[in-house]
């Protein structure tokens, strides 16, 4: 119960904190709208105007991935710069319980992206907002947030070894957009790309949200995959964090950048 309270309080705090950052507002609201606009025009010019909801949902997921990547990837580094990392690690609560709310919040503000691209699409491109399975759509969103948030935990605990976390985040933004099938069907890629996409939360997240919104596919399987991956990421994140914490204590390098 105490752990849940800590996660909830931390999630609310970081959600408010990220919402006040103009950089994250750009990443989560403006940038997805820019990409959605380009994609809307491309699909419409290609005579595929009937699939604009597909595009709006994909562009929204792009924003969720970006905000997770930048906020989670830099989570430990930012604590280091702000001088709060030592305090967080020295606190009686396990460090993972301090970090999980941060990465969950970073995935949650990605919801601004989904909202922004859907509203933008509706207002300026007449994208219909009719959901095939509303209940599954509502279930798919938290499942996607949870899986991306836990992937964020893995990013946070591994990026800490890389001095330029932002550059690493830059590096991973486009490739994951590409191979997760957010805007491009995976069938267009060479066969070796597909197994890579299966271990990525955005692949199953977009499938869960899209299949529940547009019908077809198996949204329940995608939701289950999101939750399953979240558990795997959580285990990986805990392992990496323990390793990082032990090494940092041994080498007295916790506050070094």
């Amino acid at each position, binding site marked *: 119960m105490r752990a849940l309270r800590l996660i909830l309080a931390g999630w609310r705090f970081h959600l408010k904190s990220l919402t006040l950052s103009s950089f994250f507002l750009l990443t989560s609201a403006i940038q997805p709208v*820019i990409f959605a606009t*380009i994609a809307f025009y*491309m699909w419409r*010019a*290609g005579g595929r105007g009937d699939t604009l909801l597909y595009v709006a949902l994909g562009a929204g997921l792009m924003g969720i991935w970006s905000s997770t990547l930048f906020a989670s990837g830099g989570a430990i580094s930012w604590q280091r710069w702000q001088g709060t990392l030592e305090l967080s690690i020295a606190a009686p609560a396990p460090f993972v319980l301090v970090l999980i709310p941060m990465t969950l919040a970073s995935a949650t503000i990605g919801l601004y992206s989904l909202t922004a691209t859907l509203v933008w699409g509706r207002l300026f491109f007449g994208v219909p907002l009719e959901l095939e399975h509303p209940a599954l759509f509502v279930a798919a969103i938290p499942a996607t947030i949870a899986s991306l948030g836990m992937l964020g935990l893995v990013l946070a605990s591994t990026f800490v070894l890389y001095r*330029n976390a932002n550059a690493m985040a830059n*590096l991973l933004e486009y490739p994951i957009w*590409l191979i997760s099938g957010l805007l*491009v069907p995976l069938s267009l*890629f060479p066969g070796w790309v597909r197994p890579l996409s299966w271990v990525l939360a955005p692949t199953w997240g977009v499938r869960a949200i899209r299949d529940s919104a547009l019908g077809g596919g198996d949204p329940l399987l995608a939701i289950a995959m999101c939750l399953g991956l979240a558990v795997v990421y959580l285990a990986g994140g805990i392992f990496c964090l323990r390793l990082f914490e032990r090494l940092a204590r041994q080498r007295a390098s916790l506050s070094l950048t």
Partner: protein
Amino acid sequence: MNSLRIFFVGGVTSYRALFGWLTPWVFVPTLLIVPVFQILLFAYIGRAAGLESDGFYVIGNALQSAALPCVFAMGHTISGERRQHTLAFVLATPARRLPLFLGRALPVVANGFVVSAFSFAVGTALLDFSPPPESLAPLAAIALITAFSCTGLGLLNGGIGLRVRETSVLSNVVLGLLLVFCGVNVPLDDLPGWMSTIAEGLPLTNGIRAARDVVAGASLGDVSGLLLTEAGIGLVYLLLGLVVLRFFEVQSRRHATLERS
């Protein structure tokens, strides 16, 4: 002679300082790998949408990638100096502003050209696109002129950076608008009229148009009008940037806001 020294030595020094933080660990992922994946993303969206050939996206995005270092680096000439508390010293010097800031722009143009050429080469190798060999030299000239015009826009961005605190956010928005408006991924004819009209006044638009014409068989002479327009637009933004820099410099002295970040 003093202005020439400020232009060359100041420009090179500033660029070397930029690389103080822009190490290979940042440069390679951000300025070389990201543009390549941008080309791949839009080429595959184009395939999925059944819109244009791979070459259309390689040309558009490779030239747009020149804007990435040009807009960011020129924005950084202000925000970086402010962050390191050297902006006041730079602006307190009696040096003429024209060579001071143009000197900083010259290496940025070269950088933009390198980024554009690299992403064009890799994009061509990875996708289904074979530009005619005789088009490569004209394409290089077009990339250089486009990098210049984007640097002009970057200087304006840097000037606004004297007033706007979040220059990286501003730079990202500028890059996004170039991506939407300039016919990088959507043919201008398929954009609404007001958007293609705005595009005519932005850097990139005419450069991209010239590059696509050259690959389609036009000579450099055939596209000279487009290139002159592209260079002219770059010059206008450059001059506008210098005016804005001067204006906000005076304002920030008056209101003591130079180092407010």
